[in-house]
């Protein structure tokens, strides 16, 4: 397994971020998409503050999940357009640095999206966390990483498939089920505070951590094989 020189990873990451910032097309469409998702969900489910606390955990993460998929689909599309993949394959840089750069870039991107969507959700659903709200941060970070690391991997995998855009969610969702379960339960527990049957989100956070470790390792081990298979 190749080691990951931080220099190459950083360089790729910075390149991606800079490209994204300059083009702004992905950012703008994602922002608008995020807003639309929150609004549509609010129309569909219009609960009062009490009920909303119970379902908000699930709703929020489903919305994030869909937003991430849209973002992830963009990731490799640009690379393909400019035949950058072949350049990467030929270069001496290890495949893992490419993967990490992409994954971290996506992670930052999706986190920004979440940061933008969350206040909207709070407003529309009149949310207020009864439990320790700071715990939502590790849940969000670990959960987002879980989605993004697998999403980046599967996006690479579905590159040369027909119906590429639909393949990503088809592959990603089943595998992510334990992570989603953990995220939703953790969020619900935190929102409900001591009211619900569970009193601590700690178990779910640990599970998310374990999930992240297992699948990040798996992705790093297998990415080179996947890249060279194209």
């Amino acid at each position: 397994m190749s080691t990951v020189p931080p220099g190459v990873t950083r360089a790729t990451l910075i390149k991606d971020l800079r490209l994204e910032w300059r083009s702004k097309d992905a950012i703008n469409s994602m922002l608008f998409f995020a807003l639309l998702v929150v609004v549509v969900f609010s129309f569909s489910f219009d609960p009062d503050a009490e009920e909303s606390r119970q379902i908000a955990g699930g709703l929020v993460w489903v919305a994030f999940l869909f937003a991430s998929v849209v973002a992830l689909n963009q990731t490799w599309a640009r690379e393909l357009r400019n035949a950058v993949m072949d350049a990467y394959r030929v270069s001496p840089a290890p495949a893992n640095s490419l993967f990490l750069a992409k994954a971290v870039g996506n992670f930052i991107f999706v986190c920004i999206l979440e940061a933008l969507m969350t206040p909207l959700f709070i407003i529309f659903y009149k949310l207020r966390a009864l439990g320790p709200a700071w715990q939502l941060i590790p849940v969000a970070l670990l959960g987002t990483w879980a989605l993004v690391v697998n999403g980046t991997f599967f996006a690479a995998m579905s590159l040369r498939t027909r119906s590429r855009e639909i393949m990503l969610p088809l592959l990603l969702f089943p595998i992510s089920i334990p992570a989603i379960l953990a995220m939703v339960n953790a969020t619900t527990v935190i929102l409900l505070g001591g009211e619900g049957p569970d009193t601590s989100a700690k178990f779910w956070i640990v599970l998310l951590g374990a999930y992240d470790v297992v699948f990040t390792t798996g992705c790093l081990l297998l990415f080179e094989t996947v890249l060279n298979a194209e």
Partner: protein
Amino acid sequence: MKRIFPILAIVTAALLSYGLYAAMVIAPRELTMGDVQRIFYYHVPSAWTAFLLFFLNFVASIQYLVRPKPFADRLAKWVAVFIGVACCIGAFVFPLPEGVEPGSVATTGIAITAIYFVIRKFFSEQGTDALAVTTAEVGVVFCTVVLVTGPLWARPVWGIWWTWDVRLTSTLVLWLIYVSYLMLRRFSSSGQTPVLAAALAVFGLLDVPLVYFSIWIFRTQHPQPVIGGGGSIDPIMLRVLLINWLAFLCFAFLVCWSRYRLEMMKREVEEAQAMEGLLEPGGVR
């Protein structure tokens, strides 16, 4: 080799018929659930068969991925041996959870190691990939049976079609993962398919224990009806169950064999077509 097939087919048909008869007639009527409980004799063997098939797919996928790389290949072999040895020793040294026999743990461990090496010996690299496709497809078929018979059993007994209990949910997730596996195989062009699919299969099977564990923890905090119950089983019922399992195993074997032959034939045809395309002067058909 080819002559075994019809003989085995007849034996399987006989076993299946006897199994059906045993399930309907020989097995005693269950006290609380009534005759509906007899679904159990089809539901459980299908589940065990499906899990076995998916496990075979996992082994085949791993082999496909590691065989080209000598270091990974050797490592995988040692892991397989280690699992067998660890199960044998661990079964008798460590305290086991309730209801689990040390003998079965040891046998499972040895079986895992044996399966790994048998597949390695008898399947070429191409063959390993064909085996992966075969077991995935037939596994999905059996898993579908499990997911259909499960609710049909649950509804009259517990009044609900579905519940998110550990076993049902894990089976559903497993089914979803393998359906997505089959879709990946169908949608990607033939060059990289085997490798990508193998990677997905490995991921998938890493996922399932996590699913099982997380839902188990979740459900012990929120008790829900557990489909299929635990506890001891009447000896006659056990016998009927095992007969049906044996019958379905033979059936699965035959189906897999057919599917495997179909797959190999398909690859030969594709190869021949590709060769023709290359050799034919003036272009491709």
